[in-house]
């Protein structure tokens, strides 16, 4: 798999490890009967690293992003669809039929 996917998996693993650490820390605090204000510094650092890795993976893994501007060079209107509901057949082209033979 490519790098983005691996980094994304790694980031998710780091986040889940941080969550597990926080749950264990709360368990420890319950035993020592202290208040739970915030997780320890190393868990917060782990969370920030996991966030950065996951964001990077989310932007690189899906590949090329498509433009959403209606006036960008790819999305701009070039022509309208030909009005085929009102198409008429007696135009000048009917004098030059191409030679097609059907076998079915």
């Amino acid at each position, binding site marked *: 798999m490519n790098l983005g996917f691996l980094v994304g998996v790694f980031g998710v693993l780091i986040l889940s490890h941080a969550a597990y650490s926080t749950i264990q820390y709360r368990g420890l605090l319950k035993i020592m009967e202290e208040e739970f204000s915030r997780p320890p510094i190393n868990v917060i650092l782990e969370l920030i690293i996991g966030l950065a890795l996951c964001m990077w993976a989310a932007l690189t893994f899906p590949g090329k992003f498509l433009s959403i*501007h*209606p*006036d*960008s*060079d*790819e*999305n*701009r*209107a*070039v*022509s*309208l*669809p*030909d*009005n*085929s*509901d*009102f*198409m*008429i*057949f*007696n135009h000048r*082209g*009917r*004098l030059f*039929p*191409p030679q*097609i033979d*059907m*076998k*079915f």
Partner: protein
Amino acid sequence: MLVSSSRITRAREMVTKTEETLLNQLENQVDNGGGGTWEYLCLIRNLKVRRSEKVLKHGSSILNDQKKRSALGPDEWTLNEQVAIAAMDCQCLGVAQSCIKALQTKFPGSKRVGRLEALLLEAKGLWGEAEEAYASLLEDNPLDQAIHKRRVAISKALGKPSIAIELLNKYLELFMADHDAWRELAELYLSLQMYKQAAFCYEELILSQPTVPLYHLAYAEVLYTIGGVENIISARKYYAATVDLTGGKNTRALLGICLCASAIAQLSKGRNKEDKDATAAPELHSLAAAAVEKEYKQKAPDKLQLISSALRILKT
């Protein structure tokens, strides 16, 4: 509508630049013997462009080949319909007849096939029979939009635009949201030089689909044609809206701005200075002229001299 194997299956308002380049690319590929014929035909059907000769040539090559035909599966019938209509457009009525016969054997008593048969009568030039066929189809189905539209097309083909306009107006009283019909009505009015009515139709189109720049462009051109200072000022606004919506790549709108500016300057010659300054938009004019010159430098450098002198005359 049968579900086809192509990627793009939504209602069409306009053809974008990527779709146009993809279409041209596929067309080159198919014309030079590369594969991708079915993809090309699906794209034509979805974009609703009218490339009847190509569809006829490549579609009939698929239909003639027994192996390729059975490889399509249920899409074979959609291809039959597409090739039938293309054959009628190219006046290869034998091909159209065989396609319709195949569809008739597969779907006997189908309304859609009945419509195709009436269309074939139109292509043969038997207008009376076609009218009768449509009338009988309408008895079973009085609110069939496609049949009403074909009756308008018959009047148009017979060279009676006033009758076509009458029928189309009656149709639009029932189906006011049909923007194809409004477009057709605008073009019919323009062919009869009834500019104010055509302007009304384009206003309806802009109201219902404000993001399609080509309606703004058409409206601006109708206003410019009607003439008069107020109309040309509005035309300039709509040309500017078109430039905005197309990212500045529509040369016609840019030139329209330059022409409007010159026309306003000429028509307001008799007015006093404050009025003139209120209606002039010198930055818009010079920006549009610069953009036009840039486009020409990129795409047609040998005509750059011509356009520069023309724009200089318009500025004075």
